[in-house]
């Protein structure tokens, strides 16, 4: 279809998200009296869904895939649409749709929810731009486009101390890591003289091979790569830049936590996957003694272990989910850690990480949206406060049980396959130790995930009146939670096309 349409149509999903955000902002500004929470939510959900539809259509029709002539580059190669970009855009659009639908009920008494919708869509636009970025400059701009609305979203409940504090912490650490990231880009530019990912890779290869005659620049390039790695660690909430995540996720309104921990994390990973394979290929980096693979391996191991152990000792469900989301960042990091120079199994392991992020997008978003529902009811935050909720809200509690078991990687749910493929990919590529650490962590995680299920279903409420808080049935929130649960279950039988698309997309990068 691309052959007949102008190439810029390949950016349709990005444009749809962006224009929806602009339209919302426009209505909010020009006709503030006509806006309503419902119409805003509907418009933003439609925008996100149409972006999703466009993405799925592109993937199905093979836009940018190797079968139909390869990736489409635009704007002097600054932007590149390939299957990987579309795959991630699908994650962003799905999460965004779920979040805006849920937000409709969550912000039902907020004086001005319109800003929420436009900010969320702008952040989503930034994410999808990140997915197509083919130049370090675009990567940075898109990253900021994600970050700036995110800071505001975290602090969206400006009367709420926790929310504002979380926003400030997020902003400070975010600003620092942006600076580091940008400095890293400038060092890489200094060493290679280009910002386009492919060109950087070429010059890096020359440096490594010594044909460039300037191998002294290896150090500069290496330092730059390490700094870029730091920026990635911040965005994905990985060690050592994970400190903001529990604070931000806990303080932020729950739909925002869902958005950040699912979509924004995936955005960090698309940077990692693309930049580290296209600009700093494994082979060239290793022969230049810049072993970022090992660095990612250590980060992955530390991140998943730390996330899991910290999650196990939490008393508040939302904070537990925050740490669990750090743990899952560790799993997904295996996708850039278990890579080898010869590259035979690289596509499989990175593809598995992408598939895991897609599944995670549904199960983690769903879990946070259940927390949003609990916040909407006002039942409290700790495990004890969740006791016996299943008696009053069996459907939502069942959905939550699905998310928890799937996050733990139990076989009847999609989380099992995505973790399994990830660990098997790592083993096939010779990284048995990473898979072993991942598997052990996965077992540990069952402990704290099942605590939620135990509280919901087995424990009796603290008092007779404890369940009276559940006096409303927020339809949209329910719809979002149930839809996420259904997707989590259906992705198990439907895992074939997902993993095939992801593997093909990832293999195209090597």
């Amino acid at each position, binding site marked *: 279809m691309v052959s007949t349409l102008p190439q810029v149509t390949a950016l349709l999903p990005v444009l749809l998200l962006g224009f929806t955000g602009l339209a919302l902002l426009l209505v909010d500004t020009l006709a503030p009296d006509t806006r309503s929470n419902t119409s805003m939510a509907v418009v933003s959900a439609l925008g996100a869904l149409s972006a999703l539809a466009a993405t799925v259509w592109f993937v199905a029709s093979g836009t940018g895939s190797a079968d139909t002539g390869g990736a489409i580059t635009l704007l002097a190669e600054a932007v590149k649409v390939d299957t990987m970009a579309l795959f991630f855009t699908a994650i962003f659009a799905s999460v965004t749709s779920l979040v805006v639908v849920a937000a409709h009920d969550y912000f039902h008494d907020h004086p001005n929810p319109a800003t929420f919708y436009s900010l969320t869509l702008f952040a989503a636009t930034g994410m999808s731009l990140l997915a197509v970025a083919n130049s370090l400059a675009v990567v940075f701009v898109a990253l900021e486009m994600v970050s700036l609305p995110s800071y505001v979203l975290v602090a969206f409940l400006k009367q709420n101390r926790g929310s504002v504090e979380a926003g400030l912490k997020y902003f400070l650490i975010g600003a620092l890591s942006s600076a580091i990231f940008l400095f890293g880009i400038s060092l890489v530019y200094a060493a290679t003289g280009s910002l386009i990912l492919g060109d950087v890779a070429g010059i890096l290869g020359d440096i490594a091979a010594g044909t460039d005659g300037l191998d002294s620049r290896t150090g500069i390039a290496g330092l730059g790569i390490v700094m870029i790695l730091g920026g990635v660690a911040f965005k994905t909430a990985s060690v050592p830049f994970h400190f903001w995540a529990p604070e931000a996720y806990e303080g932020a309104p729950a739909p925002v936590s869902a958005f950040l921990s699912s979509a924004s994390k995936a955005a960090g990973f698309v940077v990692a996957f693309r930049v580290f394979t296209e600009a700093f290929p494994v082979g060239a980096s290793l022969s230049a003694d810049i072993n970022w693979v090992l660095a990612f391996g250590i980060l992955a191991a530390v991140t998943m272990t730390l996330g899991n152990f910290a999650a196990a000792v939490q008393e508040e469900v939302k904070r537990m989910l925050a740490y669990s989301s750090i743990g899952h960042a560790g799993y997904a990091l295996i996708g850039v850690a278990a890579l080898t120079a010869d590259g035979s199994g690289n596509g*499989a392991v990175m593809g598995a990480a992408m598939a895991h992020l897609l599944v995670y997008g549904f199960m983690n978003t769903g879990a946070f949206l259940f927390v949003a529902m609990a916040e909407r009811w006002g039942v409290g935050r700790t495990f004890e406060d969740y006791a016996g909720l*299943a*008696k009053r809200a*069996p459907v939502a509690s069942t959905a939550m049980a699905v998310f928890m*078991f799937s996050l733990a990687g*139990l*076989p*009847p749910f999609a989380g*099992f396959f995505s973790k*399994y*493929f990830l660990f*098997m*990919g790592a*083993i*096939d590529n010779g990284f*048995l130790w990473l898979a072993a650490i991942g*598997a052990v962590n996965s*077992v540990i995680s*069952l402990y704290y995930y*099942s605590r939620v299920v*135990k509280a919901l*279903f*087995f*424990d009796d409420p603290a008092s007779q009146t404890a369940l009276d808080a559940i006096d409303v049935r927020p339809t949209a929130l329910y719809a979002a939670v149930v839809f996420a649960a259904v997707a989590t279950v259906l992705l*198990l*039988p439907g*895992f*074939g096309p997902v*993993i*095939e698309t992801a593997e093909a997309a990832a293999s195209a990068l090597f």
Partner: protein
Amino acid sequence: MILEALIAVAFASALVVMLSPNEWAGRLAFALSLLPFVGSLYLWSGFDGSGNALTGGDIAYQTQIEWLEVGGRSVSWFVGLDGISLPLVVLTTFLVPLAILSAWTPIDSRQSQFYGLMLFMEANLLGVFTALDFFLWFVFWEAVLVPMYFLIGVWGGPRRKYAAIKFFVYTNAASLLMFIGFMSLTFALGDSVSSFALPEITGAIADGGLGTWFGISPDRIAMVAFLAMFLGFAVKVPIVPFHTWLPDAHVEAPTPVSVLLAGVLLKMGTYALLRFNFTMLPDQASALAIPIAAIAVISVIYGAMLALAQKDLKRIVAYSSVSSMGYVILGLIVFTEYGVGGATFQMVAHGLISGLMFMAVGVVYNATHTRMVGDMAGMADRMPVTVGILVAGAFGYMGLPLMAGFAGEFFIFVGSFAAPALPYAPVFTALAMFGIVIVAGYLLSAMQSTLFGPFELATDYEIGPAPFHDVAPLAVLLAAIIVLGVAPDIFFEMIRDAALPVVEGVSVNG
């Protein structure tokens, strides 16, 4: 497509019942659970398989559809029946409606969820016994745990939370061990298999397809895999010393759940042992014949001794299950036609008899609200029919001729007495036979003190005969036990046909 229809009907019924009102969930669930039973009778009547499904026999009702591909191996929806799995499918579909009937009296809250979960479990149990692809089988295998966890944890007795979590942790840890064991086999098989289909893997192992993996020799991998899988399944069966979860789970679980737990879930363990350990790795099994036979005999004797020491009727039946499962293991390890066939037959027989015992004890409990031996006496006076059937069931347990238990144990002893694959076979057989004496001892003494003599009850209730829908399933079960005892060939013919290839797989029997 009949197998698919069977499983799909069970899933759909679960969903329908889950959404139905509590008032008639029980009746609806019973009616719907008859559909799979009728379906399984149809499967039985048209059964045309021969040989063992794993060793290249003719598989009845076979379907194989590719699902996805992982690391160059395809995973498929691969189901079918042979002479070993068909009796277990019939057992499952037969027990579930009866268990549902027996739940009408004791289950008085959240009925729709209870019956929905029962049917959901049935669907997955059918999947376990029909799946012939490792992944498909594993998904069903694990999916059985989830409803069981909720059924014990929500509707159980006073210590239900402890029992549910213990059950979940034990069986999940066991599954992981088994999974790792099986995976190491597939890694060692390398390129000699192109799928996870169990027949293909069995064939490849038999043809010496195991290679060296990570420097470990094929023999050692096979042995490690055998041990890991054996331990994993041993928990499920359960074999002493991995049995401690079972009495807790049984005592806390409501009666209908105990019926399925003892009647079908324990058979998952012995079925999997037969399929994986004894069919895939027969030489490893026969190398370990003495230790395995020893723990089988220990399970028989020790389980019976434990039962002897119990005061709770349900605990008595639960421990005697441990004892009966010991016979099954003994029958499997001797690798003779009657041993393996008898063990499989005993799975069905024990499923019916233990189901009957749990159900009858449950009916007594419904009336007395106590199960302690010292708390009641002379129940025969007030509930003559129930007690009559209970006594008949107990005699079945002791191996009274013309009842199913006799046939099963007789086959096993015939097969094990002169087994060439097991050294000292007569000694092991004689020791195991001694277990029957203990069984008779504790069952007779327990019944003597509770059922006969002048009526007495610690707490004063008016007790009359149990309602029809409580007694009817008992009568049906007893009838089935007698039919199977009088004419064991209705199952034993096909079982023997499927067991023979397993027996021939051991080099001793060649």
